[in-house]
């Protein structure tokens, strides 16, 4: 299926003469406004980050970035069409113009940013690659993994980190390539592989869905930097700015203590930055080509970063991730948004 899709996309890239021209003329912002909805590339299903819930509504912190952009541009966070993408086709789908933005636990790297014609606009989750093993194996460190079979999602940075890590430590392994998160879960639970490796966040998300989550342990070693963030096509800076600042608005919202419950109340605040953010002090929306209440819409409809985090992946959810690196810079993390002025 994936193969067929990527083939199809290459065909579209090749034959899509007319669409390409149309796409390059109108800006993405105009296109989204005209269409009345945002096309957002999401995961095929990663609990807490981007997955449909029981009612079929997409949820997660990656999904919230899409919703924030829709709230900013269209004034309605629900006007998003989610296009599930596997790790392999995600960039092609974005390049070919099938989606307006990609928000799908995607690591920001140099070659992706430069060579693939993409533009990463920020980081919505600081992650790192980890290993999960069954407790019964009695493994306590990633250094004990020599000779193990490893389930790995193909076409990811994790795949290359894994090769580097085992090589650097003089260990061997058998790679068991899988396409999606759920395939990896199935192969891991069946015992086809000893270890499942992906971004630590993904491991927590997967583990939450296992029949007996306590039987699996995520090893302490984190072997890579994985800044995950939304990406857009290169060459439309206006649109990149909108996505970047939609994410920043959520982070600044947390810094300033604005949440989905107190937006109206905060409009009476004396803090000038709050007034600028909520559009009481007019003019900032116009700079982005949006209405002045764009950030207020984000915070009312989606909430600030902390709300999104706690709702989807925080300690009170089955996924149970601590803020850690993803706390605000003033709370000991590295989450930091440029000033809103």
């Amino acid at each position, binding site marked *: 299926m994936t193969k067929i899709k*990527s083939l199809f996309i*290459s065909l579209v890239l*090749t034959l899509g*003469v007319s669409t390409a021209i149309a796409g390059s003329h109108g800006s993405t912002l105009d296109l989204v406004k005209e269409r009345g909805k945002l096309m957002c590339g999401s995961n095929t299903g990663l609990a807490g980050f981007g997955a449909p819930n029981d009612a079929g509504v997409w949820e997660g912190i990656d999904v919230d970035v899409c919703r924030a952009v829709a709230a900013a541009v269209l004034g309605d966070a629900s006007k998003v069409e989610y296009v599930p993408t596997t790790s392999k086709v995600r960039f092609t789908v974005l390049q070919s113009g099938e989606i307006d933005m990609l928000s799908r636990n995607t690591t920001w790297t140099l070659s992706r940013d430069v060579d693939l*014609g993409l533009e990463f606009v920020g980081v919505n989750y600081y992650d790192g690659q980890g290993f999960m093993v069954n407790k019964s194996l009695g493994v306590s460190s990633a250094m004990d993994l020599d*000779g193990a079979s490893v389930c790995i999602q193909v076409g990811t940075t994790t795949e290359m980190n894994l090769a580097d890590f085992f*090589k650097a430590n003089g260990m061997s392994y058998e790679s068991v390539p899988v396409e999606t998160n759920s395939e990896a879960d199935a192969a891991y639970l069946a015992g*086809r592989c*000893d270890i499942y490796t992906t971004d630590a966040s993904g491991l927590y998300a997967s583990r939450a869905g296992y029949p007996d989550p306590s039987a699996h342990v995520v090893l302490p070693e984190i072997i890579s930097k994985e800044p995950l963030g939304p990406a857009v096509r290169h060459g439309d800076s206006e649109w990149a700015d909108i996505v970047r600042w939609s994410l920043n608005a959520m982070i600044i919202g947390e810094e300033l203590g604005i949440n989905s419950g107190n937006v109206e109340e905060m409009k009476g605040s004396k803090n000038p930055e709050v007034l600028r953010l909520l559009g009481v002090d007019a003019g900032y929306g116009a700079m982005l080509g949006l209405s002045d209440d764009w950030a207020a819409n984000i915070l009312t409809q989606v909430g600030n970063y902390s709300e999104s985090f706690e709702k989807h992946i925080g300690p009170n959810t089955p996924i149970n991730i601590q803020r850690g690196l993803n706390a605000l810079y003033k709370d000991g993390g590295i989450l930091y948004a440029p000033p809103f002025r």
Partner: protein
Amino acid sequence: MQTNFIRKIIFDEKSRALLIQTLVIGLFAVFIYLIAQQTAYNLEKRGISSGFDFLNISAGYDISIRLIPFSSEDTHLRAYFVGLLNTLMIAVCGCILATILGFLVGIIRLSSNWLFRNIAYVYVEFTRNVPVLLQIILYYSILLNLPKIKQAFVIFDTFYLTNRGLFSPSPIFKEGFSIVFWSFIFAIFFSILIKRFLKKKQEQTGKQYPIFLINSAIIIFTPILFFYVMGMPLEFDSPVLKGFNFKGGMVIRPEFLGMLFGLSIYTAAFISETVRSGIISVSKGQREASQALGLKSSFVMRLIIIPQALRVIIPPLTSQYLNLTKNSSLGIAIGYADLVHGFGGISLNQTGRAIEIMLIVMLTYLSISLTISLFMNLYNKSVQFKGNA
């Protein structure tokens, strides 16, 4: 003169056809050229790099199922060859198994035994009417439910069956084994000579010789004899469970087995129908005539029916081989590291060169398919009627 020329083009059927065909080809060439131009332009405009220099940078990922050594430091080009070999391996093994199974089932479907005939019938109707992708996934899922590595199912104390594959001892060839090998090759050549000689003798004298028995004995016992003469220059490296996995020995991975079962069981259903139609196509009179001449029934099948049936079987068999080879690209569904999975998938994703890589992969499949067609057509010619029959 001028009017003559124009009149000729308009009214002469041959010239007109030529003109139209030239125009169509010309238009098509322009069309292709424009698409290529536009694609290059679009890629450049979007800041997507293109070109083939990525082939020489290191791949950065590992492939577990491989016939030649490969590590993450090797280039994408080598990853291509690893994938190509895996594709060829599944295609060759699949075609062989599918042919054997297909011929068996095809013959059983014509059997007079009601039970066998109908089992074969159900098998054919079930497998050829269910998408092959589902069958591959089914067999793979079954293989994943084999015993886990620590509870390996032991066969004869040498083979270990687990959901990570079938582990078996691997041969270690010691000094002198090459002589055993060459004696085997020599035995094959020798048996061909014997066959020719005895055939000729049969034509002259009419006396029949047990050629098959004689040659089997030569081919089997010559290498065995040399094996003992050279002092048994062969040892086995047995797999031993150490840590997470078996160390040493060889392994056949479940991904390969899943593909092999899926592809060959599916394709065998089509081949069996081809075989059945081939056998039925031989006119009844041929069988009756040969029986009237007093031939044994096994001879009737082998000497009269099958050679004539082959003429009907080979062309559709060729297209089944082509289908199987192309279907091997479904390996991506269960993680079999074929050409599309590794080079056409992972390399594509790491480098972003979708058009270049897809072109290479498509050209490769085209070459494989054309090669299969070529050889099957040659074989087809060799089984056709010769002379003015």
